[in-house]
């Protein structure tokens, strides 16, 4: 059953032009230069310091590192991060 779903979803994206982040429940990360990162569709905050932000996603984690981080907004599934971003890394499970 799960396998069918996994196969249907990419097919839906390709043939119906549905946004991939919604259909695949993947995080959408919007970066504005180095200063802002807007992460939607995350599954929870794991680590937050002024140098690191780690978020859980459906398949693994997203780790953002940099300096002087401030969470400008926190909504259940959205986070707006402000600071100096050095790198964004995906860490699989």
């Amino acid at each position, binding site marked *: 059953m799960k396998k069918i779903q996994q196969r249907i979803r990419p097919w839906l994206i390709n043939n119906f032009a549905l946004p991939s982040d919604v259909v695949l429940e993947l995080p959408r990360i919007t970066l504005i230069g180095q200063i802002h990162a807007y992460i939607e569709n995350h599954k929870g*905050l794991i680590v937050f310091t002024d140098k690191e932000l780690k978020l859980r996603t459906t398949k693994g984690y997203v780790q953002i590192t940099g300096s002087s*981080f401030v*969470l400008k*907004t*926190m909504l259940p599934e959205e986070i707006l991060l402000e600071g100096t971003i050095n790198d964004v890394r995906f860490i699989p499970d």
Partner: protein
Amino acid sequence: MKHVQGSYLTGYVTILVKGNRPELFFQDCSNQGVQVWNVQKVSPEQCKGNVLLRDIKRIKKIKRKRNYKISFINKKGYPFIIKRIFRKREIVAATIISILLILFLSNILWKVEIAGVPKDIEEKIDKQLKSYGIHPGAWLFTLDKPGVIQQKLAEDIPELLWVGVNKKGTTFYLEGVEKIVVNEEEVVGPRHLVATKKGVIKDMYVSKGLPKVAVNDYVEPGDILVSGVLNETEDTTTEGKDSKKKKAKPIVVAAEGEIIANTWYEISVTVPLEANYEHLTGNHEKKYYVGFGDFQLPIWGFGSPDYEHIHRENIDNNIKFFKWELPVKIIETTLSEKTYQELERTKEEAIQTGIKQAKQELQLQIGPEATIVSEKVLQQSTENGKVKLDLYINVEEDIVKAQPINQGD
């Protein structure tokens, strides 16, 4: 960042969370729908962030289940500012008292200035004003309108010819003109007496001058009645170098006298056969309201009198703040009982009232010295419940007017 807007109005606090992985506390908050913003990690065990004032209860609820310590480190927004102001009761009290004081002082008469009249009359005016209740320290809205005061003053102080009353803020400016009893400006030089109206001479009293008319003569306006030239000769009409050389120089005097003539007036009046009168019985009650726009709040005089018909009279007095008039006003309403009276007249009565009315009107026109001798109804017609009368009225009056003799100088 929509939610951050307006947070200053509702107020927000910065909380400092202490404990193991404090950022997770904020994550919990946002999962519960509590708005959180500006989250910062201060140290590995401490994390601070902003929440709305109204969410504090929910935050405390969330805290209960977890092992975190929360302290409020900063309070911002109007609710806190207002609270801070109200905590200082002296300031609040002082503000209220000072506003009341200004209100109180702006509605008090401070000064009565009288100008343009001598001291003795000034004192008289002052006394009279005091009897009306106008003196420094009186409430402005209890006083009459300047126009009314003006009228009253002019009536009560006979020495005043005219008085102007002006209210400027909290000051009454009075400007008076003293009545200087001057004998009517007579033509002092040589003069004739001429007729002002057409009429038949009835009586003549000439104390100076040469009468030119006799009793029972008919005169037209402008006719010379009494001449000021005593030795009038026929050829004085041609003036020039010849007249100067004449030995008989005309002797001119100021003619004086009283010529009573019979004059007549035609007057038409209409008198309705039926008339409705409103009559005030003299019973009245006063009520006071505080008005704000259309809204009126009674402050004195409750309940309405059991009059059948009520005549209402409203006097509005605006309350002032410095020089500005506030939209608040004090309304004084006088409810007077009135009765309606219907009057029906017969034609005969209507004619009588018509004649009476016409006589009164005429007497006002021609002055009190004239006497109405007789009247006659020339024409009468009844139309639409009204009687129309054309009257012929005979009057005896003085028709003299002085006219200076032009000596050609």
